[in-house]
């Protein structure tokens, strides 16, 4: 009885999971099955036997699709009607060319991709972008959108954003760059999207148009926001009430936003018990007053001060004294020489958790480096770039006292082979050393370090030191970003020149990929596919 029940149970399950199976019948007689198999490969349709993959439930097909790149998914969607449907329904992430002419195809696109939750709408500078109508249709078709990214959609207005925000209240992440809508549109998002966690705004023209910028926020989103990132805004201060109202804010990034920021931070220090743990400032008008205010963020763990020349030791001391949990500190002093030993000694005194220190265009001497080395037992990553004062004695001191140090980057510093020698005999945990544009270090010095410390990856460049030297201080941050993979924040904190160089890296690797592809695939079918893709792109 039990046996019979078992057969029934399993068989039921089979019927349920592979409802469309026709293949299972062939398994009854294995001999036939193998014979059919051979033919099956070539003429499945002629023989009236369904294809294998169609036997798979849709969700399994979707699993396969999830392992594919967007380009491959596109190819798969053209295989047959069923694949088209399964692929469309299982696609959550979609990136669209947001030119004006997108409008007529929006309906059919979102019929096809009806489960999109993460959408990017990207236009380019030379083209006219989609208008409100398109965004409104999209928001009606994708009420479950959790992420929206807008790039150069200059035709979108406040009205479009307002409707969008009302239709997509579940939005968690909004990133907009080079758009022209204004405070009203932004406020609509903040008033409607109570789950918004991340807001990134870069070059939002609309808020700069009126003489007195309309305040933005806080709105219902203030309670949920964890990350605010503002870039290249003329009057980013109008986000002040949002920043002040965002009680759960963890990360605040302000890059190249003009105007005075001290006032806002002073207000923030007075009003808010801050959760902020991660602060990035770059080319910002902020002085020690602002830093003193920021020092009230007692949970601060990460601080990047990049090219904020008004900040001095005084401000850094205030931060160090109060933000004892500081783990990562990046300072690009822009050769202003206002932050130096005094501030760093305070960091050494009060921030024992320091793991990562990046100093660019700062001139620390042995006095501060020695204290950092002995007081911060977790200091694992250190970068010293474009420092006039970091020479062999400083490196020797680090070598002798930085016991936890794993990665060290020295760039454009007056270090010589003696420094390398000291490294070879010190820092027992060293894994990687990068020495760039240090004229005093010869290839022999690098070789010697390699030889003595076989387990340490030594990256040395002594060639063309003079030619590249001009870009030393700017490139520093970028090199560090590559040096320490677990901190993408570092790359984000770099300069505009830096971002440009990142994109060249990107396009170079793309070219490489292309080269790789064309080398590997001279198969006719692939060429057909490629040409097919590019012609259709041209139509677009």
């Amino acid at each position, binding site marked *: 009885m*039990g046996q019979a*029940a078992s057969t029934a149970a*399993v068989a039921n399950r089979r019927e349920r999971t*592979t409802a469309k*199976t026709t293949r299972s019948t062939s398994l009854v007689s*294995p001999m036939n099955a193998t014979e059919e198999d051979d033919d099956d490969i070539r003429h*499945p349709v002629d023989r009236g036997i369904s294809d*294998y993959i169609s036997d798979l439930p849709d969700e399994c097909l979707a699993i396969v699709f999830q392992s*594919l790149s967007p380009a491959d998914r596109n190819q798969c969607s053209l295989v047959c009607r069923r694949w088209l449907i399964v692929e469309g329904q299982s696609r959550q992430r979609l990136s669209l060319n947001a030119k004006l002419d997108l409008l007529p195809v929006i309906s059919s696109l979102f019929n096809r991709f009806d489960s999109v939750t993460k959408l990017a709408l990207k236009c380019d500078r030379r083209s006219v972008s989609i208008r409100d109508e398109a965004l409104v249709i999209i928001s009606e078709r994708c009420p479950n959108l959790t992420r929206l990214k807008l790039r150069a959609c200059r035709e979108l207005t406040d009205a479009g954003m307002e409707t969008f925000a009302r239709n997509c209240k579940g939005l968690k992440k909004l990133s907009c760059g080079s758009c022209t809508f204004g405070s009203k549109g932004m406020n609509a998002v903040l008033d409607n999207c109570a789950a918004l966690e991340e807001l990134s705004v870069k070059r939002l023209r609309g808020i700069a148009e009126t003489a007195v910028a309309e305040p933005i926020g806080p709105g219902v989103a203030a309670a949920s926001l964890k990350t605010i990132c503002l870039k290249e805004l003329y009057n980013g201060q109008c986000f002040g009430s949002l920043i002040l109202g965002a009680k759960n804010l963890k990360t605040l990034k302000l890059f190249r936003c003009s105007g005075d920021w001290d006032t806002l931070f002073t207000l923030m220090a007075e009003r808010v018990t801050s959760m902020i743990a991660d602060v990035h400032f770059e080319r910002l008008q902020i002085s020690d007053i602002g830093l003193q205010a920021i020092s009230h963020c007692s949970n601060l763990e990460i601080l990047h001060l990049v090219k904020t020349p008004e900040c001095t030791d005084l401000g850094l001391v205030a931060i160090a004294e109060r933000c004892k949990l500081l783990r990562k500190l990046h300072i690009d002093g822009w050769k202003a020489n206002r932050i130096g030993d005094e501030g760093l000694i305070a960091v050494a005194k009060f921030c024992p958790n320091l793991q990562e220190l990046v100093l660019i265009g700062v001139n620390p001497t042995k006095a501060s480096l020695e204290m950092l080395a002995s007081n911060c037992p977790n200091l694992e990553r250190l970068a010293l770039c474009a420092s006039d004062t970091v020479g062999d004695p400083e490196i020797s001191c680090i070598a002798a006292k930085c016991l936890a140090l794993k990665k060290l980057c020295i760039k454009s510093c007056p270090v010589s082979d003696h420094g390398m020698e000291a490294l070879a005999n010190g820092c027992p945990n060293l894994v990687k050393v990068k020495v760039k544009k240090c004229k005093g270090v010869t290839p022999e010095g690098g070789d010697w370090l390699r030889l003595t410390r076989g387990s340490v990856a030594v990256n040395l460049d002594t060639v063309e030191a003079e030619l590249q030297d001009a870009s030393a201080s700017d490139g520093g941050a970028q090199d560090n970003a590559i040096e320490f993979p677990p901190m993408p924040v570092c790359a984000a904190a770099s300069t505009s020149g830096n971002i440009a160089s990142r994109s060249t890296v990107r396009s170079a690797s793309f070219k490489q990929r292309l080269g790789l592809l064309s080398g590997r695939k001279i198969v006719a079918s692939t060429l057909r596919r490629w040409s097919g893709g590019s012609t*259709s792109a041209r139509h677009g």
Partner: protein
Amino acid sequence: MAEEVSSQMNSLSISETNPSSSATISLVSGDDIVFKVEPTIAKEMETVQSFIDETDGKITTIPLPNISSHDLPYVIEYCEKSIAGKITKEFEAEFVKKLNNEEVKELFLAANYLNIKKLLDFLSQVIADRIANKSVEYVRRYFGIENDFTPEEEAKLREELAWTFTGVDPDDEDEN
């Protein structure tokens, strides 16, 4: 009183299931070949295990009409490695090297039928790798699928796709 009975029944069922759960499980392939496996192996196969659970472990012979005696040993091998915690990249590379396209597809079906998540994930990646960077025509041939679009429909779909960006979005996670 009623409580007593039920507790007795509980102990009874426990004493019955215990010996049977340590006994081997017989998996019967579609072509009637019996494979005896340890109960731990059966645990990896959710379909089989849930069946054993449903019958309180009384039944240890499980017919798997969808799986051939050719495929079942592969599935068992993978489950054994999985239990031993020995699924490495090397093992998977070797494992897949033995399989032709048809076998990969059959095993994928088997993994789905038996509901073995790890094997299913692994094989879906294998299939994805084999059709990555290939033309539509290749994928159709690979799976033996008839193109049921009219040329006009296909052209329209391609035109729509031209509006999508397929490159990796470099500033998706890190920038901003």
